[in-house]
C-alpha cells in the first residue's frame, strides 16, 4: 500500500509537533506542518498532501476558511478536522466548507491513525457529536427555499452514529453492508457541501462578486 502523505496545521507548536511525531512513528509521510491559515493554504498547494489535519482555532484565523481554500484548489487533498473545540458551530462550518471529517483532539493515537487512513480512502470520519450537528443543520435548513434533504435511510444512519454506534454495529442493526453504511454517511456530507457551494455561488452572483458586469 502506498504511504499516505499528511500535513499538520495547528497554531500550538507543542501539539503540532506531537501529532506530527505520532504520525511519523506510525509510518505516515509527514510532508509539512503549518501554524497559521495563510501558510497552510500556501504550503498545502506546494506539497499536495493526501490528508490535511486541520485545527480550527488558528489564533485569530479560522481553520474553516483554510479548509475551503484547500479543498477548492486541491481536489485530491482531503481535510480532517482535529479540534479541541467542543463540537459546535465552527466544526459545522468546516465540514460545510469541505472537510471530510472530524476528530476530537483527545482521541487516542490508534483512533487518529484509523481516522487518517479512512480519510485518505475517501470515507467520512464522524463523531457522534458531528452527526448530531449535521442532523440539526438539515432540520434547520428545512425552512429554507430549496433545502437539501436526507433520505429516511440517511437520517436513520446518522441518528445511530449520533447515538454512538459504530459503522459495523449500524450495518448489523439495519442489515446492510458495512460499505453501504459508509456510503450513506458520506452522502449526508456531500449533499451538505454541495448545497453550501451552490449557496455561495448564488450569493456571489446576487451581489455581483462573480466578475460579471
Amino acid at each position, binding site marked *: 500500500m502506498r504511504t499516505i502523505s499528511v500535513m499538520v496545521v495547528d497554531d500550538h507548536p507543542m501539539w503540532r509537533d*506531537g501529532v506530527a511525531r505520532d504520525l511519523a512513528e506510525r509510518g505516515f509521510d509527514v510532508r509539512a506542518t503549518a501554524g497559521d491559515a495563510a501558510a497552510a493554504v500556501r504550503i498545502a498547494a506546494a506539497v499536495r498532501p493526501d490528508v490535511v489535519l486541520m485545527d480550527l482555532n488558528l489564533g485569530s484565523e479560522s481553520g474553516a476558511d483554510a479548509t475551503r481554500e484547500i479543498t477548492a484548489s486541491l481536489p485530491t487533498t482531503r481535510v480532517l478536522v482535529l479540534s479541541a473545540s467542543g463540537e459546535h458551530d465552527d466544526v459545522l462550518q468546516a465540514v460545510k466548507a469541505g472537510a471530510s471529517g472530524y476528530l476530537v483532539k483527545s482521541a*487516542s493515537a490508534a483512533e487518529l491513525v484509523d481516522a487518517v487512513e479512512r480519510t485518505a480512502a475517501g470515507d467520512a470520519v464522524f463523531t*457522534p457529536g458531528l452527526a448530531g450537528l449535521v442532523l440539526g443543520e438539515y432540520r434547520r435548513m428545512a425552512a429554507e427555499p430549496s433545502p437539501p434533504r436526507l433520505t429516511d435511510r440517511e437520517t436513520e444512519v446518522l441518528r445511530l452514529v449520533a*447515538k454512538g454506534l459504530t459503522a459495523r454495529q449500524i450495518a448489523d442493526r439495519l442489515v446492510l453492508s458495512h460499505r453501504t453504511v459508509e456510503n450513506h454517511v458520506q452522502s449526508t456530507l456531500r449533499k451538505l457541501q454541495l448545497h453550501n457551494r451552490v449557496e455561495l455561488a448564488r450569493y456571489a452572483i446576487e451581489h455581483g462578486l462573480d466578475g460579471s458586469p
Partner: protein
Amino acid sequence: MTARVPRDPAAPLWRAGVLLRVITLCFAGVVVAAHHGEYARTWLAWAVVGGMAVWTLATGLYYPRRGAGLWFTLVDLAVCCGLMALSRWALTPAQLAGEVPLVPTVWVTAVVAFGAIRAGMLGGTAFGLVVSLCNFAVRGFVDIDLLRDMVLLVGIGFVLGLAATTSRQSALRLAAAERIEAATAERERLARGIHDSVLQVLARVRKRGLEVGGEAAELGELAGRQEVALRALVSAAPLESSSGEVDLRGLLQVLTTERVHVSAPGTPVPLPGSVASELSFLVREALENVARHAGPSARAWVLLEDLGSSVVLSVRDDGVGIPEGRLAEASAQGRMGVARSIRGRVADLGGTITLETAPGQGVEWELRVPRTW
C-alpha cells in the same frame, strides 16, 4: 464593561406633555380674548392666563430635563386646581352656570398627562379624577357635559399611564437582554482563552500519558477527566434567554464526562425553563441508571434533536442491557422504580417514552415531547 446609566425611557413622553401644555395655553388665550369684556373681572381672567404662561414656562424647563419626582407633579396639580378655582371670581354666575369654559380650559389636561407619565395608570386616573372634581367644585354643579369631560380626563390619564409603564418595562427588558448578551460574549471570550491554552495542554498530557503507561497513564487519566469537565463547562450555553426560555443544550452539555457523550444541534433548542429542567432531570436519571446497572465499563450517548413541533431525546448505553421480562416482572410487582417515575414525568409533559433493550446490547431510551406549551 461599564453599566450605562439608564435614561428615563419615558423622556419623549415628558416632552410631548410640555408641548401639549404650550398648545393648550394658546387655546386658553384665544378663548379669553373671545370673551374679553364679558367676564365679571376681565383683569383676573388675564391674570390667570399670565399665571398659566409662567407655570407653562417653568414646568416646560423642568420636566423634559429629567422627568420629575412625584412631589413636583403634585405641586403642578395644586397649581392647576388653584388657577381653575380663580375662575369662580373671574366668571359671572351666569357664565359659570352656562357654556363659557373656565379660564384654563383644556390647559389642565397636561397635568393629567404628567401624573400618568410619572405614576402610571393609577397616577393618571387619580389626577384625572382630581381635576374633574375641582371642575365640579368651581362650577358648583354636575351635568352631562361636565361628566363627559371627566370621562375624557380620566381616560387620558389611564391610557397614557399604561403607555408610560409599558415603555419603561420594555426598556428594562431590553437592558436585561443587553446584559445577557454582554455576559455571553465575555463567556465566549473566556472559553476561547481556556480552549487555546489549558484544554490543549490537558489533551496532550492525557494522550502522551496513556501512551507512556504506568504512573504516567494515571496522570493522563486525571488530566483527561479535567479536560472533559472543563470543556463541558466552557461550552455550556448561557442558561437563560431574555424571553425566559432556556437552551436545553446548555443543560445537557454539562453532563458530559469521560463515559457520557452529548450530541446536539448547532443552533439553540429553546424551551420554557420548567420543561427544560424537567427534561435534563430525566436525562440525568437515565444516566444514573446507566451508572448503576449497565456495568463498570459502560458508556452512554445522549442525542438531542429539535424537530420543530417536538423535541426528541435519546439516551443509549452499551452496557449489559436488561434481561428479557425483568421490566415486566418488576412492573407486575409494583416496584418499577426509575422506569415508572420517568414514564410518569414524561406523560406530565404530554410526551411519550420508549425503551429498547436486549441482553448484552445495552438500553436505549427515547423521549418525545411535543412543543404544545
